[in-house]
């Protein structure tokens, strides 16, 4: 036990003497949280929309009034009036415009005659997000225009009322659980991967191996130290990220305790996995080379930035094995839903079992000789 603690002491002393290393472990998730949270979280504003009105009738005027209302209120788009449909479509193609609405001649007359009146929306569907936003907006607008001027006494149409269990979740909040898990992952990647192999190459392990330390003590010492470092990174990102994203529940003692539990179990699972992967590696380039691959393979399928249900089957299989998925699920439950232990016990159980299996594997594979 004392020998194991000597390894932990050595690792932590080194850790606190190199604050830049600690900072770099947290920098990537923080930058990601701030940049991605702000880049993807917003709604589209001030899209440039051409309006080509060949009708100039009362019904087209109604549409133009509706556009003006949109421009003045939610500002999804800003109408620019064109005389020529071809010029408008060309400008959509070359990126000067985000879309074009064409109101054909005789539109008002067709409305009054109830003769299938149509307007056309031209969108640049290479930008899915923009085109689907415009389509949704115009779908709503058309539905509003189609409402009869006089409502019947008994409305027969079925209406869907949506009940949201939680307040609106901004994208930065949605990203926060993934960022916390990522901070711990980067920490174990640096501590349990890069520094571990560098120490091996420098001969530090040779120094350990000539002492009477056992294989288990050495593996446990390195893992406990790695888990403590990952926990610190996770806790710091939880607090800073929570403040940035406006998650006030982190200061609730109950939530904080549950978060600490989640951070601890996640750290153990991650460092054990890293130990297992690196236990037989000698080349210092290997952890640096696999860092990006592991990050992509574990972070993106975890549901941290996109729902797992939207993945193809094979990616869902990866997500179900990936400890990152359980970490993200657990942090989401605690941070976004303030759900208690009942919501995260399966995550805790999976991460604990995963950590145990990985630790056992790493110990079995660890060579007591050079």
């Amino acid at each position, binding site marked *: 036990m004392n020998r194991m603690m*000597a*390894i932990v*002491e050595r690792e932590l*002393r080194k850790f606190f*003497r190199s604050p830049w290393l600690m900072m770099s472990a947290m920098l990537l998730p923080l930058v990601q949280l701030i940049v991605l949270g702000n880049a993807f979280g917003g709604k589209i504003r001030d899209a440039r929309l051409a309006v080509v009105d060949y009708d100039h009738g009362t019904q087209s005027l109604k549409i133009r009034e509706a556009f003006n209302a949109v421009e003045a209120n939610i500002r999804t788009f800003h109408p620019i009036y064109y005389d020529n449909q071809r010029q408008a479509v060309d400008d959509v193609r070359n990126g000067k415009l985000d879309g074009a609405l064409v109101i054909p001649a005789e539109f008002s007359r067709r409305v009054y005659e109830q003769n299938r009146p149509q307007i056309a929306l031209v969108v640049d569907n290479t930008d899915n997000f923009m085109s689907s936003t415009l389509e949704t907006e115009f779908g709503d607008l058309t539905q509003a225009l189609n409402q009869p001027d006089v409502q019947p006494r008994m409305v027969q149409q079925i209406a869907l009322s949506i009940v949201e269990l939680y307040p609106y979740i901004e994208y930065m909040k949605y990203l926060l659980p993934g960022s916390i898990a990522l901070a711990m992952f980067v920490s174990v990647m640096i501590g349990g991967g890069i520094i571990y192999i560098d120490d091996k190459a420098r*001969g530090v392990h*040779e120094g350990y191996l000539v*002492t009477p*330390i056992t294989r288990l003590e050495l593996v446990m010492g390195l893992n406990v130290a790695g888990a403590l470092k990952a926990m610190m990174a996770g806790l710091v990102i939880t607090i800073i990220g929570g403040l940035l994203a406006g998650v006030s529940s982190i200061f609730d003692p109950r939530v904080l305790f549950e978060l600490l539990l989640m951070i601890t179990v996640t750290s153990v699972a991650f460092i054990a996995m890293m130990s297992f992967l690196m236990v037989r590696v000698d080349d210092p380039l290997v952890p640096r080379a696999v860092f990006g691959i592991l990050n992509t393979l574990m972070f993106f399928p975890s549901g941290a930035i996109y729902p797992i249900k939207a993945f193809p089957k094979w990616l869902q299989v990866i997500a179900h094995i990936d400890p990152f998925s359980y970490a993200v699920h657990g942090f989401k439950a605690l941070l976004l839903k303030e759900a208690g232990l009942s919501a995260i016990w399966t995550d805790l159980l999976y991460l604990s079992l995963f950590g145990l299996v990985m630790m056992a594997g790493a110990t079995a594979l660890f060579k007591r*000789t050079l």
Partner: protein
Amino acid sequence: MTDDPRLPQLDANIFANAPVAIAVEHITKKYGDFTAVDDISFRVMEGEIFGLLGPNGAGKSTLIRMMTTLLPLTGGSATVAGHDVKKEADAARRAIGVIPQALTSDLDLTVEENLNIYAKLYSVPAKDRKQSIDELLEMVDLAKWRGAQTKTLSGGMRRRLEIARGLVHRPHIFFLDEPTTGLDPVSRVAVWEMLMKIKSTRNLTVLITTHYMDEADRLCDRIAIVDHGKLVALDSPRALKASVPGENVIEVQFDNMPPEWEQRLRNLESVASMQPEGASMYRILSHDGSLTTTQLVAMAIHDNVKVKSLSVQSTTLDDVFVHYTGRALRDATQAAHAYIPAMRW
């Protein structure tokens, strides 16, 4: 003392009656088809400083790593402080201190922290730890640097710290793998003096590997010369030098040599052997250096042969190495440097 009947039994061992500290019997290490250590046997007696001398790549480090439990043995056996390194590895580790070739102390930690961590790894009781560290820091002359971060120390000071680290648990046997490699001459001498002082105060048995002949000559009671994984000679430095025919080495370079010049050189009085070294250079071993030199110069004047350079010196361990391996240690070291495989990262 060696058990290998093929090796010359050159000198009565002054430690012959001392108990055996290290016994290596037919030890072998193979990596696939490559034999790094080939059937080596020797014994090191308690209190002795035993040197393994050889060029880089000769198998010295592999040998020391097998004795210190770092590498599994392919064949043979090694007993250290009475413990078989295969069967009682843990007991062997407790009895030995090891200084690896690389400087492996933590640069971010202070001198004292480095020693403290290793004292804990060796399970030195908390009450003895401080006293042991204080003593060692005085011994290696680093007491006033105890709070300094290791990265602020010079190479020589870091090596002294490593030596202190290897002794923190009061081992009986001390293994040092090329302890002065990379140090400047002043630091090397400081390390030698410190090792001699420690050895005398702690009654240690020391096994040291080196490719520096002066280091082996100055420090070691006995030297084993290792080349290509084989033990080629083993005895005290004095006895090894005495085993080489001739007591002086003459290195001479000529210009305009007539035919049969080489043969006439060989026939000079007191010449024990002669070896051409290329570019009209000869290495002559002589029982009487001054006589051979006088005759050689007189012969050159008579035959109008120009002597471009001439040096006379006593037999060194390099001559011993040449005698037993057929090549100079410095050449072998350079060749090993040139052909050493890429470092395994």
